[in-house]
Each structure stands twice: as C-alpha cells, then as structure tokens.
C-alpha cells in the first residue's frame, strides 16, 4: 500500500524509468535537437519544425533565456531584501518556457500557473506587474486581455479547465487561435487536469496541455504522481502525447509548433511533457535540502538549458563578444527596470479592499465600506488604525 510500492516505481519492476533524477538521460524516448554538450543533432520528424530558425533567432532565444534567468535572480534578491513576500523561481526551466512561449501568436491565449514568469515576459508583461502579486499590492497583476495571458493560477490544475473552455470558445467562433495551459507534474494528479483532458478530447478543442515535468511538486518526486511517463497518460484520453527534452529550447519549440499547427487546423488537443528540472527551491520559503539529493542537482546542472544554447552558438561561431555584451546589457537593463518598478510601486489604499468585489453595488458590502470608513475616520491618522498593538 501507498508510498513504498509507488516508490519502487518502474525501475525495480523493469518498467519505465520515472524516478526523480533519471528523467532525460541518454537513450530515452525524448525529442532532443541539441545535446547537453551543445551539439545540434538531427531528428527525422522534428527538424522540419525549426528549419527556419535563423542564427539571429537562435541568438534571440539565448537572449530571452538569459534575461529571464536574470529576472529570477533579481526577484529572488528582492524577496531576500524584504521587498517581496515570496517568489517562485523558474531556474532551470528557461528552455521550456521560452521555447514554447516564443512559438505562440499574439492572438493565442495562455493559462499558466505561478511559475511561468518567463512566459509572461514573452507575452510582453510589464515586469513590475508580475511583482505586484508577490509584493502583496494586488491579487492580479495585469488585465489578461492586454497580453492574452490569464493572471497566474495558484490552485493547482484549475487553469487547465479554463484553457479548455477558452479553446471551446475559439471553436465556436471559428477562429484559428489556440489556448495553451502550463502546469507541473504534480498537477497531473488533480481531478481538474484529468477532466480538462476529457473535455478537450471529446470536443477536439484547440488547446495545448504543456506540462513542465520539473521532477518535484514541492517535496514530492514525480514518481509519486505518476507510475508511468506522464506523456503516456494522454493516450488514455485520446490525446496525442509527446515527451520532449525540456532543457532544449529548439526541441520544445518544435513540439509546440507541431501542436499549434494541429490545433489550428482542427486536429484537436496535444499534450506536451517537457522533461526539465527545477534547480532552485519551490519558492523562496522552501528548503529543498530537506528532501533532495545534491547529486541530483549536479546531474541536472550538467544539462543546463542556457549552457546548452551557448554551446551551440559557440560551435556555430556565433558566440561573439558583441552578442555576449548585448545580452548582458539587456539583462541588466531589464533587472534594473524591474527593481525600480517594484520599489516605486504605490501602496494600495485601505478602502481599495472593497473595490471590484461586485460589478454592481451590493448593499451588504456598501454598508461595511461605510462603517469601515467611519471607523478609519475616527482616528486622526488612518495609517495607525487596526494594527495588532492598537493605536488608542
């Protein structure tokens, strides 16, 4: 019963290797176009999907990955300095996020979890808007329609149903845009994700299920969520599943482009499992040394998604001082702007608490707002009201 048997997983039984730390190794059935050493390898089916990626575009994918790693480091620093309450790092998942998000059109729509800050960057979000939520200044950082991306979902898996419903709407409208939803390996256990796949398959909706299998759901290894390869589950729902090296930006791009094409032409949903690794903690409040082995991290550091593209650029003679300088300057500028945007963010006002609960007036709430404003007015200085210590 329970964990021991699950823990034996596929390995002991001779089944698929699904234990943390072993995914993505050589010889696995993973779509890969760039080796960890930075060598471009050919793939009979997926080469075609990235044939048009020019040297210049490769450089720009590299730039995006460096920039979002920098965003992550800067936000982590802001959290440590007390400017943010919490931050969920994406360190190690840059290729999965950039490779997929850079494949989307502006009229495609993204439904993500809390970790897809790289995707948000690609959608063109103002970085201070990403931070608003983690600073405690708002519960949603942007208007989803301005960047065609819903604000991050914290309830694990809930967004997959939203994406499926949105895709059903696209179908009704006869449009050719696509909804894509991002979630983790842990999320695949939730009912919502499974129900989303049932709906998507039944209606053949244009939705992409993009699972970043980063091997851990806080402290729980992926083998606890799935006894088989996650991508293989999709077949049971009648959805094509593909397992791609999530640390390989070109492979991710190829798989996403294929899925987008299928969806746009009435071919229905695709499930992509991007096999990657969360190199940092779950959030800044987490301590991964309690549950994971340092060796595992080392193994995965050797497959770093950024080092891989650098390797490829180097082999191609494209890694010039000019490129490196330009990328570093961009990362610095973005980090500087984000920090300034964070620190200069205006604080919300007390009565903002009552805003937007309803779109039309509500008598219960109006009364509460009236009473609370009278209460605040009973203090000379509203800021002093209601601290636990009291201000009498």
């Amino acid at each position, binding site marked *: 019963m329970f964990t021991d048997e699950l823990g034996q997983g596929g390995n002991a039984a001779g089944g698929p290797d699904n234990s943390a730390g072993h995914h993505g190794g050589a010889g696995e059935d993973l779509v890969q176009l760039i080796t960890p050493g930075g060598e471009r390898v050919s793939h009979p089916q997926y080469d075609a999907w990235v044939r048009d990626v020019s040297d210049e575009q490769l450089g720009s994918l590299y730039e995006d990955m460096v920039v979002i790693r920098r965003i992550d480091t800067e936000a982590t620093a802001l959290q440590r300095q007390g400017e943010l*309450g919490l931050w969920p790092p994406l360190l190690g998942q840059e290729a999965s996020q950039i490779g997929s998000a850079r494949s989307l059109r502006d009229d495609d729509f993204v439904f993500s979890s*809390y970790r897809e800050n790289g995707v948000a960057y690609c959608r063109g979000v103002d970085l201070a808007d990403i931070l608003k939520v983690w600073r405690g200044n708002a*519960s949603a950082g942007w208007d989803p329609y301005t960047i065609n991306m819903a604000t991050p979902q914290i309830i694990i898996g809930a967004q997959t149903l939203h994406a499926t419903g949105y895709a059903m709407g696209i179908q009704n409208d006869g449009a050719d845009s696509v909804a894509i939803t991002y979630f983790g390996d842990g999320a695949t256990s939730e*009912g919502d994700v499974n129900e989303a796949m049932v709906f998507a398959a039944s209606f053949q909706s244009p939705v992409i299920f993009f699972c970043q299998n980063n091997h851990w759901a806080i402290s729980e290894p992926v083998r606890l969520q799935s006894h088989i390869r996650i991508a293989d589950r999709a077949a049971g729902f009648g959805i094509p599943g593909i397992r791609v090296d999530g640390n390989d930006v070109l492979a991710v791009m190829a798989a996403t482009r294929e899925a987008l094409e299928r969806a746009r032409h009435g071919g229905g949903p695709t499930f992509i499992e991007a096999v990657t690794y969360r190199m940092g903690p779950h959030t800044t409040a987490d301590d991964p040394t309690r549950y994971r082995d340092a060796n595992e991290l080392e193994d995965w550091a050797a497959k770093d998604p950024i080092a891989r593209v650098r390797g490829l650029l180097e082999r191609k003679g494209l890694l010039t001082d000019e490129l490196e300088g330009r990328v570093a300057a961009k990362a610095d500028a973005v980090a500087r702007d984000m920090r300034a945007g964070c620190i200069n963010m205006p*604080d919300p006002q007390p009565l903002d608490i009552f805003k937007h*609960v309803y779109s039309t007036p509500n008598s*219960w709430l109006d009364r509460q707002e009236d009473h609370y404003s009278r209460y605040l007015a009973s203090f000379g200085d509203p800021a002093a009201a209601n*601290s*636990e210590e*009291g201000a009498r």
Partner: protein
Amino acid sequence: MTQMTFARAINSGLRKSLENDPKVILMGEDIGTLGGVFRVTDGLQKDFGKHRVVDTPLAESGIMGTAVGLAYRGYRPVVEIQFDGFIYPAFDQIVSQVAKLHYRTQGAVKMPITVRVPFGGGIGSPEHHSESPEAYFTHTSGLRVVSVSNPQDAHTVIQQAIASDDPVLYFEPKRRYHDKGEVDESIDPATALSMEKARVVTEGKDVTLVAYGPLVKTAKDAALAAADEGVSVEVIDLRSLAPVDFATLEASVRKTGRLVITHEAGQSGGLGAEVAASITERCFYHLEAAPVRITGFDVPYPYSKLEMHHLPGLDRILDGVDRALGRPNSLSGLEG
C-alpha cells in the same frame, strides 16, 4: 510542563495518537520527508514509516476520498490540507461523503477522520493561502468543527479529535504556529476539558467577547487594553465551532448583558451570525444591547498589503466593545 511552539504541540499530539493507536494514519501533500510546509508533521514519517505517515499525490479530492475508504476499513485517517484555500477540491468528499455516511448507513459506518486545516490570515501570503472557510463546514450536519488557540489546547484537542468517532475539522491558526506556550504532555486527553466546551479565558463583568483560533490572542489583548479604560471584558474561547457550547456563552451573557463576537471570516452568514441569533433567543431579557459582530469584510481575502484592514485588530474590537456599551464609537449617530 515544557515550553513549545504551537506547531510542535500539534506534532507531539499527533505523535501520541500514532503511538497509542496503530489504526491512526496521517495523509497529505509533503507531510513526509519535508514534514509539511509548516513542519507540523516533522520527523513523524521517519519514526512511524511511510505506511503511517503518507505523502499522497497532489489531489485533495483524492486524499479525502481515499481517507473515506480507509475509515470504512477501520482506520482513523488524519488528513492535512496544505492551506485553507485548497480544501475546496475536497469539499464534495467532505460534505457529501464524510459528513453523511454515518447517517446514510444508519450508524453502520463510522468516519473517524480528522481534517487538519491551517487557516486564517496575517502572514502576508498570496491569495488562497489565508482563508477562513469554517462556516461552510459548521453549516454541514454530521461534522464537528473545532479551532484551537494555544499550544496546550492544540496538543490535547488534536488527540481528542483523532479519538472521536465522528469526523472532525480541526482548524489551526497558522499565524500562531510559532507562538510558544507551556504544554503539559502528560495530560490525559480523555479527562481533559472536552473539545466541545468553550473556555472563559479572561473573566470580566461588563461585556462578553467571544473569539476562536487566531483572534483569541487579539481578544485577550483587547481585554487588557479595555481594562486600562475601566471596562471589564470577559473573553471566551469558543474552541468548538460546531456544536457551539452555548451554555458557557449564556452564563457569561447573563452576567454581562452584552455580547461582542469576532472572527476573521466574512460577516454575512458567518459563525458570528449564528452566535448572535442563538444568544438573542436564549438571553433576550438579559441583553442590554444588540450583539455586535467584528469580522472580516464580505470580500475575497485581500492581497497582503491590505490584510490588516480586513482582519479584526485590537482597535476594531475595542470599537465594537464601545458599541456594545453604548459609548462613543465610530458608528455613533448612525441608526441600525
């Protein structure tokens, strides 16, 4: 007596239950190796093994539904819901299955399941991490609902909850996890004050102030501050939210003639409404003023920069005490 934190006191209570009854099983996300995100189950898997302290897949309905099956089989599952806001995927299993099975089977099937829910705000978390969903469960027949406010109670009540043959929702005030207090681990939970009883925390004669969970400490502080102004406040820790120990409340209100109740959850349809109505029914002729509710607003739990406005603090409670006493207050001059 040992000084320990709230979290440690629950941990020690869980440990005792695991030791005393081989049918007790802990289940939840991240409760094993990590010891839970709040470390409440720290070290328990190491000592009792993976079959008794189970890291489950990430699926709340799945956790609750399998706990139902285990209870059918004679186990006493203790489920951890990681945060209040994540209990909703499990809601159907709790209200349709856990709460009703005993009734539906005319007593044949017992559901001695304890659901531990870290709840409430004040820790600066993002959305879905600071909710007070207790009224959904107090409204559901078949469930017992408790909330503890200090390490000693946390320690004994968790054992009583696990020993109860009824399902118990055990709400842990997460902003008090690190508060320390004296805990006597030798107290026998079977003879200690029953989890169904409220407790008078601070005696007083002018106003009865009812609180539970995280706000008991705030209420005590408010009583101290009121005493400085010559007002004597009797603070009652409700402890059991379903059923409410009205006898203790009645006795107090008959003495003071005034009632203030405070909770973090929104006001409308909240537990404060139930207490106010029931006390009005029972003590109408002893009341000198209408009962006063000091609660969170009827808004989704706000982002952290505003949570101190939403949460009843000491001053807002004192303003409510003033209202109950007919002293000048922020609503003076308003009718109704």
